[in-house]
């Protein structure tokens, strides 16, 4: 039973840890499917996290915090669009610039506004998104096997967790069942075909980037208002890049993206769980190695185990009409 509980705990933290990855990964999916590389997921999450925590602590409302996180993140997405769609700039350079601006400005503004070394004040419980307990979760807890699965894994997460997982079928539906999705996929493959069909390439790509901004905003809010009780500098800690890796791993497909993010989340959860625990045969493993495990596996998986991932063909190339 101990082992079972341990597994449940690891899976529970897998879900919690994969949520920001999943939101960022889907965010990247919208933009890359539309043909815009977005290495600035990291930065947009970070400004989202900061804006969310700052607004929540000032206005004492989790929802105002979430709204602000989305707003600021979308604004940064539009800056990326302005540089790379309207002015046909290099998408990688623009994305990197956004990451730097995000890292610097959050610390600077945090210090100027709250004087806590770049942190935002610790959020009270009504300023955060609390856990939602599903009906019957407490009563069923004692039922063997199914009880803990229902009450630990399914029930008891914040609303943003459910939003993240519902975003997966929703994104699939948008992508493959709506006119917007059809056009968005087309513009990432062959923008000239979209242009000659009489649709604005720029407006379509801007809309895709707005979707990206909304999702990175939610991802940021999750980090600073659910996982943590406030903003800490550089709290995204490379999650935006892992999300990009997961996106390639998932071959730009929403359901695959969910499994890829769960896998990365699981590795992360496992490394936390196994810290300091002696392993059979090997003995005690240094903490640093355990922490590096998800990244090492990322490299191995991306290098050899996924076969050829074909990105959207117009990805990274600004659309120029004149030939």
């Amino acid at each position, binding site marked *: 039973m101990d082992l079972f509980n341990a597994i449940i705990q690891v899976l529970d933290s897998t879900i919690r840890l994969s949520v920001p990855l999943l939101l960022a990964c889907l965010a990247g999916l919208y933009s890359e499917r539309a043909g815009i590389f977005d290495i600035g997921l990291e930065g947009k999450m970070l400004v989202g996290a900061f804006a969310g925590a700052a607004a929540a602590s000032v206005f004492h409302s989790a929802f105002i915090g979430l709204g602000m996180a989305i707003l600021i993140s979308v604004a940064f997405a539009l800056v990326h669009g302005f540089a790379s769609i309207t002015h046909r700039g290099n998408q990688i350079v623009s994305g990197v610039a956004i990451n730097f601006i995000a890292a610097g400005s959050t610390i600077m503004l945090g210090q100027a506004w709250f004087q806590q070394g770049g942190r935002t004040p610790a959020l009270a419980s009504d300023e955060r998104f609390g856990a939602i307990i599903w009906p019957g979760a407490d009563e069923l807890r004692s039922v063997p096997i199914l009880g803990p699965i229902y009450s630990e894994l399914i029930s008891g997460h914040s609303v943003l967790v459910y939003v993240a997982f519902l975003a997966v079928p929703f994104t699939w539906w948008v992508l*493959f*069942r709506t006119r917007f999705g059809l056009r968005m996929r087309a513009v990432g493959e062959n923008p000239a*075909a979209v242009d000659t069909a009489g649709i604005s390439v720029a407006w379509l790509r801007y809309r895709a980037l707005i979707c990206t901004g909304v999702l990175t905003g939610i991802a940021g809010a999750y980090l600073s208002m659910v996982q943590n009780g406030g903003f800490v500098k550089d709290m995204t800690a490379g999650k935006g890049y892992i999300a990009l890796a997961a996106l390639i791993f998932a071959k730009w497909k929403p359901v695959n993206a969910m499994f890829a993010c769960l896998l990365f989340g699981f590795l992360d959860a496992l490394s936390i769980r196994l810290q300091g625990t002696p392993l059979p045969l090997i003995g005690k493993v240094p903490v640093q190695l355990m922490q590096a495990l998800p990244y090492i596996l990322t490299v191995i998986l991306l290098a050899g185990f996924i076969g050829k991932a074909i990105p959207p063909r117009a990805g990274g190339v600004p659309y120029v009409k004149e030939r």
Partner: protein
Amino acid sequence: MAQAAIELIGINKSFGAVRANRDINLEIVRGTIHGIVGENGAGKSTLMSILYGFYQADSGEIRVGGQPASIKSPNDAIALGIGMVHQHFMLVDNFTVLENVILGAESDALLKKSIAKARSELERLEREYGLEVDPDAIIEELPVGLQQRVEILKALYRGAEILILDEPTGVLTPAEADHLFRILRQLKEQGKTIVLITHKLREIMAITDTVSVMRQGTMVATRETTKTTVGELAELMVGRRVLLRVEKGEAEAGGVKLAVKNLTVKDSRGVTMVDDVSFDVRAGEIVGIAGVAGNGQSEMLEAISGIRRAVSGSVMLDGKPIDLTGAADPGELRDRGLAHVPEDRHHVGLVLAFEENENSILGYHDDPRYLKGPFLDIDAIRDDARDKITKYDIRPADCRLKTANFSGGNQQKIVLAREMEQDPGVLIVGQPTRGVDVGAIEFIHKRLIAMRDQGKAVLVVSVELDEIRSLSDRILVMFAGRIVGERGPEATEGELGLLMAGVEHREAAE
């Protein structure tokens, strides 16, 4: 007087200093097939792009069905019943036929209804015009002929009454082109108006009712097709008399210069592109390789010139073997007297950002003639470039100009001059006149025959059947990676066309 579907009045369009269209007047009669011919850069595509709303004219008026029309975007053109089949297909390769057809013409925010509607509409179009294509097929898995059909269907689905086709036969086999012409005639019978842009005069003669000729941005003449000749049209296009078929004497073939034995080449996906090919090229003859693009000719050229590794097979150059499966590199082959004019001059033949004189020695830059000690001898290089410019009539005659600023025909001459002037024993040329004007074609053909008459071995690969027939002393036809037949220069187009389509090959196999 029949009613005009389209009238263009006084159209002007400039790109920077280049006047692409000057005072163009054109009337296209409803229910006819109207051809527009002209050399590359004559302004045909610009004119049609203005009509389709891709560009806006600087001045002038467009009337559609007698009404003045303002066409600011492809949307406006589509609304006026104008559809366009572009030279480079505007299709999303990994979408299905249906998805491509509805893209931009969806009836709903959700796809379900649009797809159902398109499916029944495609069935109707198939019945009416014989345009059959599997609506659920993925575009990239279809042959080009069918991809083009999807483009036509796209236009018809949007209710096009006027259909513009830009160089539609460039990628088709003769049989596919014939099929296209049948479809176009059928569309005409149903009352559609068709505008056909091409530089192939034979097609104009075969299918159009009226033909207009453009030269250097102006409309120089409009003729009824039955009352003109290929010769007259060619002269109008170029502005002087043109030899349509180069004159040449009998070949005096000598010993074998290049012998290819059992060559097999795979592409990057591991698909066999060249399958056990053997042939010889002798001194003093031109061997032409005919075939529809994509049947292994490109890979074969790349293997023989050392750009791509072969899987197996051997090549003898002047009786000495070259190892194409391993260490052969283009530099070594050049040193041994094999010059190569690649098919794709932009990606392989030239560095477009370089000055002309730099490109004119590219690959031969370690030749002592161009060196002063360890440094490039800039003066020698420029003198050499100026010589070639004079000899090959490269325009503009400025060896300091950036190569990107030369026209396609002149860029091709830069590559040809570079390779031919090295006096190689064997010359391999891929698509010698792709994207080259009629006047320059004549010049290039003459130079190739002069090389032959000097006793060089020349191997020409071209998808233009006319070119192969006019140049070659022997014609080899490639299909699906194999050489499926050898013919003399007197072979008819029909005979070669069948070979190119693999027909005879299949019959022989059965």
